[in-house]
């Protein structure tokens, strides 16, 4: 597991805001990219899709965000939903402001397991960040080592879909079977309409030797998993990236545990088989 790039795991490394742009029409989601103040730090900061960082704003606090950028890209990209004290401060950042980054934290999607199989990436809302990183990384380095790749991604309305330029690209990419949906119909939307769990049920995914990766609001995960199980996809073929309130990010402060595992240190990526029998606290 690549260790956090600081001997004091609580001390963030200084980074600079490179770009900030709105991701959703209603301006509640913003995508930011960062570079480290001392560029040499980037080499030590090697991460894999699924990992996250704690973004620290001096005087406001810290919050965890999945890394949305492809590991081979230079800048670190995250998407932030404006809900509270720290996220509001992040939305008010300008290019060049100094922030702190702690990471890379947590584990990553088990790409080695996906080799030689089909892969269905299922996501909802703005939890699409680490899965976008995964898709970019796979298309770049594992395109020939995987079977079919499906992308099923939904949001409340077209304005809330993340990385719409990438979505267009992926929709036209023959290597992928994409199902982009929205919960409720909006006039100039000609794509699919419906909730992600229903789209998953209807989509004709080849279930032979297929791994699935789900990341989204707890309700979506809880409704989608039974649908996959009914399709005959095994519990150990379903991976999910969980969300929990986090503070330390390194398995010390005790709050993000599911059973005896910590979502921040032993997760956030778990197989559904791991979660069985544990308190359903996510």
């Amino acid at each position, binding site marked *: 597991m690549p260790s956090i790039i600081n001997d004091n795991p609580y001390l963030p490394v200084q980074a600079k805001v490179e770009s900030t742009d709105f991701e959703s029409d209603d301006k509640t989601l913003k995508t930011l990219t960062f570079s480290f103040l001392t560029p040499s730090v980037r080499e030590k900061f090697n991460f894999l899709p699924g990992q996250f960082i704690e973004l620290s704003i001096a005087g406001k606090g810290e919050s965890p965000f999945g890394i949305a950028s492809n590991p081979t890209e230079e800048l670190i990209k995250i998407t932030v939903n404006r809900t509270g004290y720290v996220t509001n401060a992040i939305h008010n950042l300008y290019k060049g402001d100094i922030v702190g980054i702690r990471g890379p934290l947590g584990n990553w999607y088990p790409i080695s397991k996906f080799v030689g199989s089909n892969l269905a990436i299922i996501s909802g809302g703005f939890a699409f960040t680490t899965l976008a990183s995964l898709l970019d990384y796979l298309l770049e380095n594992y395109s020939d080592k995987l079977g079919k790749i499906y992308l099923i991604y939904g949001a409340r309305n077209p304005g809330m879909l993340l990385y719409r330029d990438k979505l267009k690209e992926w929709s036209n990419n023959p290597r992928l079977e994409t199902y982009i949906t929205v919960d409720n119909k909006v006039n100039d939307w000609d794509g699919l309409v419906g909730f992600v769990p229903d789209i998953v049920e209807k989509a004709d995914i080849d279930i032979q030797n297929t791994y699935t990766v789900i990341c989204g609001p707890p309700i979506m995960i809880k409704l989608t998993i039974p649908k996959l199980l009914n399709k005959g996809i095994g519990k150990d073929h379903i991976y999910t990236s969980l969300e*929990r309130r986090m503070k330390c990010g390194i398995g010390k402060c005790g709050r993000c545990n599911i059973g005896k595992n910590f979502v921040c240190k032993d997760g956030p990526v778990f197989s559904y088989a791991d979660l069985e029998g544990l308190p359903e606290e996510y």
Partner: protein
Amino acid sequence: MKLLRIKKDNFEEALRSLQNEFKIYIPKKEDDNVVFSELGNFKDMDYKFERTSHPIKEFVLPQNETLFYFLKDGSREKESFDTSKRILLGVRPCDAKTLKLLDFNFLDSSYIDPYYEKRRKNTFVISIACNEFGENCFCDSLGDSPYKLNGADAIIYSISNEELNLLIDNEVIFSFFKKYSEKIEEVNSEEEVSEKGKIAERATKPLPVKELKEKLPSLIGSTDLWKNISATCIECGVCTYLCPACYCFDINDITFGKGGKRLRSYDSCMFKEYTLEASGHNPRPTGAERWRQRLLHKFLYYPDLYNELGCSGCGRCIDKCPSKIDIREVINYAFNYK
């Protein structure tokens, strides 16, 4: 392991010689609380060493700890470590054991907590074999005993009016007391000596903690059990704040003028905000889920991860619970639950 017999005044002289390098703390009564306070003059060394109201975790994990200072524009940061050396004298074996329990969490291989590590390395514990059982303490019911080292550096046995026996399991401590002792015996195991230490005696009422550990996974889904256990719990933070083995903490920024500091402070799995997410979703909305977490953490997860219970039986949570919930009854209730 060495067993020393030392005259009391030699023992005090040894302590006096250490005072320039170490701060020495002993339990002192302050109205109806017993608090660890620095040993000033030696006349208040009455060797009674009552159990303190607050656990010794405060010395290795204080309620407020500054992680680092910063300027608001993020340009400068400075870490803040406490490296003061101290000896805690007159600690109860149940408290001494919990330092070992906290070590599991803060010093495990994946990440070493630098703040905890520096404090822990500079804290030496000389415990005292229990002279009388507290009202609600139950270390014997967990299969432990009130006169074991339990990870302490030394333990005081059988105090007579002029001398005492000191069993030492730490070279540094041994080097301090070596030249002050009348007799030094080489001892290879604690059991040989603990007979001497046996002062407090009572019929132990064992708790089915081993059997409960096997049964707990099957109880995770029985919501009624957890509802009944937490029916009268008011979800305050007393039991976790005063528990020597509870270490959950929160991290927040404090600002003042141009700068500020990142502060680590106690948190509690009993608080709603402990797991409340920004979206409003709370995986543990009521007392029932929180009590399930509290019991599973101490009697299933800790034994699974470190094969030690997450509870040393000190009884503080029983003493101070406003609803008088007794964790011993909760253990029996869960174990016998159909």
